[in-house]
């Protein structure tokens, strides 16, 4: 019973302390808010997905250059896949050079005179 009374009194003391909000805190908060209002807010971070992570880490790419690089890459692929060379190889009557018989087997054949194998 005494324990309960003590607990209640302690709760009351802690609650009373909690209610007391310092005017100094209000003044401090006002100063903080004034400081924030007087400076430009920094850039926000937008998460860990591409390309935000680069922006957040100040590795912001120069977009026109990236676009030029990507365009050159796409053009290179297009020429590679569908350019004049591709048409030659896929055209009618064209046969790619190909060995009819491999010389690989001759390497392991025995010499004619000695019969030695390499």
């Amino acid at each position, binding site marked *: 019973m005494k324990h309960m009374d003590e607990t209640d009194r302690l709760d009351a003391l802690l609650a009373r302390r*909690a209610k007391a909000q310092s005017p100094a805190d209000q003044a*401090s908060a006002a100063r903080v808010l004034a400081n924030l209002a007087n400076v430009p807010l920094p850039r926000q971070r937008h998460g860990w997905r591409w390309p935000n992570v680069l922006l957040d880490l100040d590795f912001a790419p120069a977009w026109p250059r990236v676009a030029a690089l990507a365009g050159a890459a796409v053009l290179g692929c297009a020429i590679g896949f569908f350019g004049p060379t591709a048409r030659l190889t896929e055209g009618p009557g064209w046969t790619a050079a190909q060995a009819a018989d491999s010389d690989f087997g001759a390497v392991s054949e025995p010499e004619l005179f000695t019969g030695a194998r390499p």
Partner: protein
Amino acid sequence: MGDPSDEELMRRVAEGDERAFALLAPRYAARAVGLARRLTGSSDDAEEIVQEALLRVWINAPRWRAEAAFRTWFYRIVVNLSLNRRRRAPFAPLTEAGDPSDPSLDPAQRLERDETDRQVAAAIASLPTRQRMVIMLTYDEGLSNADAAAALDSSVSGVEALLVRAKRTLREKLRSVLDGNA
């Protein structure tokens, strides 16, 4: 139409709305200064901590997910910054950073009450860090055990255990005060 909720304001802040940030920041600035002041024992440190915490809110707003209340998230930032500051700087005595007395009381009552509050503040200041933080978050800031657990990156049962231990220690340290109030 009432004031927008914290979460609604945070959604706007996440889109870079500075006016929403200007509405949201004053809601918790004073309470956060009080919390940081009690945790660090220094009003100057508390101001810097809350300014830093508000800047972090702004910077990281796009990453914020409405899984926990904004207040819990904000207090978590304040608690972490206060702990970091305390690791770097010695703790100032709480008597210097104590709360002001109630001007409505007569001088004798005010003196007695101030003395009681000073003893309570000193007893809380002598608690281990996490126990002290639990007392501050649950009593001073009115957070539920679940919210305090989220703010301290702990479990609810962990917070409850800390509260039990903290109150047991406080009862022992404040026995004279509690007996006197009987």
